[in-house]
């Protein structure tokens, strides 16, 4: 960690070469790339030291991570497939963050979304595929949206801390999933692993032509761009950011803060619910406990690393998707446990939050001072 910090501190020597006008205009944006980037490198360095403690060569680690994430077309497809739900679950944290709320229950909304989408597909099993798929999208988004809206509503109208309530709702969602999958919705033929009936091959959303990457990636990209436009280029988004900055000021100018909170939380949950729908309709084909794969929790990290900016979420989700895609290769080639991806994610998260202290302190980015 310290080496990268030292790098940024030594950099002023290079600064005079840069055009001060350029720095004045873009210094702030550069900061938003440089600091999380440095934190990421620092985290990779710490993780390299960590695996070195267990007798593995860090250079091998970096090589296999690159190979497993971006080395071949196959690993790229694996990475992008994992990035799709991460974009959507990250939006579940990033959108409420505009209102100053810390929602960490994306995993719960994903599970409820997946469950609602499966239920919709099973109910409409004789309808044409397009109708079934549309119904799944709607059901998934509504299910997930209501789930997070519950956390938002409790915060707004009962003063219940939304961070804790949204996390509790994850465990409740998991219980609801297990309850239905082993009870009312269980396919009697699924013996070892209780699951619902399959939604049927014709109803699966399939892959983008020419790739093995499913359409969920496009859903994610569209959602991220739409969220960006909503937050930064609409009156609604402006109102949300005003309320996030200062609730009292928002009330004075006549904004209905309660409605803002509920709407934003609904949209956020709908994104995570859509991720659940995608996992069912493009990967699993049915609902079972496999759905709780931790995309919701990694999404929190993606949102924080992207500094809650919907557009920045896209590259960060690809990066984190790459890290999780490389987990298999690390397991096979280096004999690292599958939890090593979790450790690295934890280190990255800690490093990124610690790097918050650096904003506005990099002297070489302040032109003329």
């Amino acid at each position: 960690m310290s080496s990268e910090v030292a790098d940024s501190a030594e950099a002023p020597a290079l600064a005079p070469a840069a055009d001060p006008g350029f720095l004045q205009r873009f210094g702030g944006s550069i900061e938003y790339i440089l600091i999380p980037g440095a934190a990421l490198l620092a985290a990779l360095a710490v993780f390299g030291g960590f695996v070195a403690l267990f007798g593995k060569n860090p250079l091998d680690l970096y090589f296999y991570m690159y190979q497993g994430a971006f080395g071949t077309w196959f690993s790229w497809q694996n990475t992008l497939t994992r990035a799709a739900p991460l974009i959507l679950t990250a939006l579940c944290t990033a959108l409420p963050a505009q209102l100053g709320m810390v929602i960490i229950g994306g995993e719960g909304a994903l599970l409820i979304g997946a469950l609602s989408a499966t239920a919709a597909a099973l109910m409409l099993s004789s309808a044409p595929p397009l109708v079934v798929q549309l119904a799944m999208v709607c059901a998934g988004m509504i299910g997930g949206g209501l789930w997070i809206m519950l956390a938002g509503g409790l915060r707004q109208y009962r003063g219940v801390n939304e961070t804790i309530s949204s996390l509790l709702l994850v465990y409740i969602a998991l219980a609801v999933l297990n309850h239905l999958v082993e009870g009312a919705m269980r396919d009697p033929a699924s013996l070892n692993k209780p699951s619902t009936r399959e939604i049927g091959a014709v109803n699966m959303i399939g892959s983008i032509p020419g790739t093995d990457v499913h359409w969920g990636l496009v859903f994610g990209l569209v959602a991220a761009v739409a969220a960006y436009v909503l937050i930064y280029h609409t009156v609604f988004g402006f109102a949300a950011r005003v309320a996030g900055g200062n609730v009292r000021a928002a009330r004075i100018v006549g904004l209905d803060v309660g409605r803002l909170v509920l709407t934003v939380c609904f949209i956020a949950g709908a994104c995570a619910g859509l991720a659940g729908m995608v996992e069912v309709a493009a990967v699993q084909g049915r609902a079972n406990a496999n759905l709780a794969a931790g995309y919701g929790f990694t999404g929190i990290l993606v949102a924080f690393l992207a500094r809650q900016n919907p557009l920045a979420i896209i590259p960060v989700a690809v990066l984190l998707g790459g890290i999780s895609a490389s987990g298999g290769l690390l397991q096979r080639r280096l004999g690292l446990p599958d939890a090593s991806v979790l450790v690295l994610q934890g280190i990255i998260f800690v490093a990124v939050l610690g790097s918050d202290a650096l904003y506005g302190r990099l002297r070489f980015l302040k032109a003329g001072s």
Partner: protein
Amino acid sequence: MADGTIGLWTVPLAVFGGAIRVSTPFLFVSLGECITERSGRINLGLEGTLVMGAMSAYGISYLTGSPWLGVLAAGIAGALLGALHAGICSLPRVNDIAVGIALMLFGTGLAFYLGKPLIEPTAPRLPAIDFGWWSDIAQVRAALRINVLFLLGLVLAPLLYWAFRTTRWGLLIRTAGESSDAARAMGYSVLAIRLRATMVGGFLAGIGGSFLSLFYPGSWNEGLSSGQGITAVALVIFARWDPMLCLWASLAFGGAAALGPALQSVGVTSGYHLFNAAPYILTLAIMIITCSPKRTLTGAPAELSITR
């Protein structure tokens, strides 16, 4: 009765026994979090600390053969994670809630990583004191086998209550939590006080984790803790930052968490997963009832970021 079966009485008895058995991790985590939050900082990472504590306790107990060394190791691991939390939070403009979430992921990941080789072997477990010797009924005896850690927690709660009111350290922690300016004016470093409070909180949460792997359920696996840590953090809020109320709330939670297994033992299996979610539903329900958007909670430390 004669053949040792007690029919439906099994359920309340198992809930009672469960309240004592299951409540211990809740109790230790909530007492630890109580100390941390009283100093004006919230550590949501105790979920990770709990898992890390469970893993370290199991590992050390297996390697040394002494479960008590395992408990100590769990405490130290927890204190180190607490120090990491406090260290990052002392940097300017760092949000303690976010750091807590990060450490929740980090602690769990690290425990899973280091704990991989520990899933197979069996480590020596903590002893229990048999308070049920007077009874012939197996269920009564099972319910009254009480672990020493629970008794320790039972003593710790009133001790902390007393310490917060009367000792110098208790006053300092409360001052840091109520007004960091006042503590600073008295010449104390708020960051140093919070560092120690977070480390002690982590130490206790680690011990809570050691109970999970060394007594009940009594083995190490990756599904060991499912939200007990975060539930305990929520529990502190409706216990109004009062150690004695933390004790009663933990007991209530233990009882709620024991409901599912207890009902299963008498053949009610239909809502098993829903009954397992009882502690989370209970937490949410109590938070809904006791919180209010109009006023800050009574007893809340004024410096705490979630109540400000």
